[in-house]
């Protein structure tokens, strides 16, 4: 499902792309975190991935096949990365009949958007100075119970890939002296929620430049290692 903040990603990606490098911004909770006991069970909550075709006029068109591939690649890479650290990833589909779960997931969308707009995009909240204590609250325990989950991982990823037409326009306009035309890119944000307290214990935003492509296995690996940078697992 699409979220408010996820729709910001292509725009953010476009703006950081001119540097053609990968940038990340890792944030961690200032709350006390109970130490992890043994191998973790991590609930991967319905990842929200959407890949689009960025056409000449700046209109982007979602591609169902690219989305399927990108999603599958990213999930596989996440699973691999976490498995090498001895953790178990459980893919979790939201049960629309479970009102609590639905509310928690919607709450997370808002919390994610809030973190992006006040911590990443630089309009800091004086009331949060020195604190990163956003939480979904202890209501998460309902969600955790069925699978015995210790953590939940939320992921939103967007990719826009330029048509060859778009690249021609970018070159054309550059020649004529008008720069700054987006040629696509990928962006994602992820959060790790402690399912005992609901606290967001880790949050990261990552953007990659053109040329690293989650539709390809190695591109997905690059993106995932950027997204999951410094994840405390």
């Amino acid at each position, binding site marked *: 499902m699409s979220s408010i903040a996820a729709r910001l990603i292509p725009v953010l990606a476009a703006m950081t792309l001119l540097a053609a490098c990968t940038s990340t911004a890792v944030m961690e909770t200032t709350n006390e975190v109970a130490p992890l006991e043994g191998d973790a069970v991590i609930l991967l909550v319905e990842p929200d991935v*959407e890949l689009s075709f960025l056409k*000449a006029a700046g209109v982007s068109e979602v591609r169902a096949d690219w989305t399927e591939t990108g999603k599958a690649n990213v999930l596989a890479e996440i699973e691999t990365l976490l498995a090498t650290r001895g953790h178990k990833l459980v893919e979790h589909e939201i049960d629309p009949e479970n009102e609590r779960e639905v509310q928690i997931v919607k709450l997370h969308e808002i919390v994610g958007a809030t973190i992006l707009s006040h911590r990443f995009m630089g309009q800091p909240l004086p009331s949060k100075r020195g604190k990163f204590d956003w939480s979904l609250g202890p209501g998460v325990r309902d969600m955790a119970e069925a699978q015995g989950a210790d953590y939940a991982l939320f992921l939103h990823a967007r990719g826009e890939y330029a048509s060859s037409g778009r690249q021609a326009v970018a070159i054309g306009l550059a020649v*004529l002296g008008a720069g700054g035309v987006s040629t696509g890119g990928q962006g994602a944000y992820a959060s790790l929620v402690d399912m005992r307290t609901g606290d967001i214990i880790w949050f990261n935003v990552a953007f990659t430049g053109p040329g690293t492509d989650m539709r390809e296995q190695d591109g997905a690996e690059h993106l995932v290692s950027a997204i999951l940078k410094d994840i405390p697992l």
Partner: protein
Amino acid sequence: MRGFRAIVSFAAIAALSACATTDVDPLQADTRPSEETDEAGLWLRMDEAEDLLQQSAVVVRDPALNAYVDEVFCNVAGEAYCDDVRVYIVEQPYFNANMSPNGMMQVWTGLLLRAENEAQLAFVLGHEFAHYRQRHSLEQWREINNAANLSVLFNVGVAAAGVPNAAVLGNFTLAAQLYGFGRDKEREADEFGFGYFTEAGYDPAAAAGIWEYLIAETEASDSDRKKRQIARSSIFSTHPVTAERVETLKGLAGEAEAGIENDEAFAGAVAPFLNDWLADDLVLRDFGQHLHLIDHKIEAGQNLGVLYFRRGEAYRLRREDGDFERALDNYSKAVLFDDVPPQGWMALGEALQRRGEEMEARAAYGKYLELMPDAPERGIIEAWLEE
């Protein structure tokens, strides 16, 4: 140098002007586009939008109402397409219905509030179904793409020739495409929609009927801008000029046989929601339109407890000279009917209290609290009663 730039610009236009065909065949029943097509991408985005809609707070989930609207839709669309479309009733006070290319249809409660009978509803559903079946969204999407490509080319070409502000001209035509389906497709949807709903046995006069009602209601609006919108036929309007539409639909009806209206079934399906939907409409504060709607419904002579109550509420909020008296008058009428909502008694109590008629106000409040044990206003009312 100017000559060189002109060559670059024309070359760019030639290279980028490959257009996708915009003339598509009608959709077959029970099909999904294959994954690598642009249509599949459009469906995927609409599937996401549908997930959002399903989870949203604005969908009306009442089983009986949904069953009724689904049945009317299936009458019009026919067995083959019945399961391809999912009709969502959305609680929004505006007259609107829309169709997404993946089979998601929305019918807004403002429309259900204004339709006079089942035949009128059937025409609107048939019109929306026609958009879906004729794949107008896909055609539109491709047209936008072509127009968008051309408008960028326009930028490049014209920039090369040294004309400033060419971007504004390019965006003008693109924006016109983005406002709804455009008039050609709306006309096509009217024609096909007319066919579907008359084949299902509905009365052809209903097609023009719903628009005639809307024109009359809009002419009563408090907003000058809304009144101008009906007549305006700028290229940005999402529907063809309504008077023209009415004439076309009347013309089609003239050649067709009479059919059913099914006004009783429709009235029965909608009655439980009348109070809530009129309350939603009153939030828009267009007293002209709102009172026209209520007066029109009162003429039909049903649900008078609800309707007189709602009319009282409108006068109370409008607060023009004499409106408090009119409000009290309407509340007094409303409580004579069995279907008056409990809030009608509270409104009567307040109106009497405002007039200083304390004994009568006490009686009305007492009746309200008796009918509504969980009355939210209990604290306020009881405090006054104790004075």
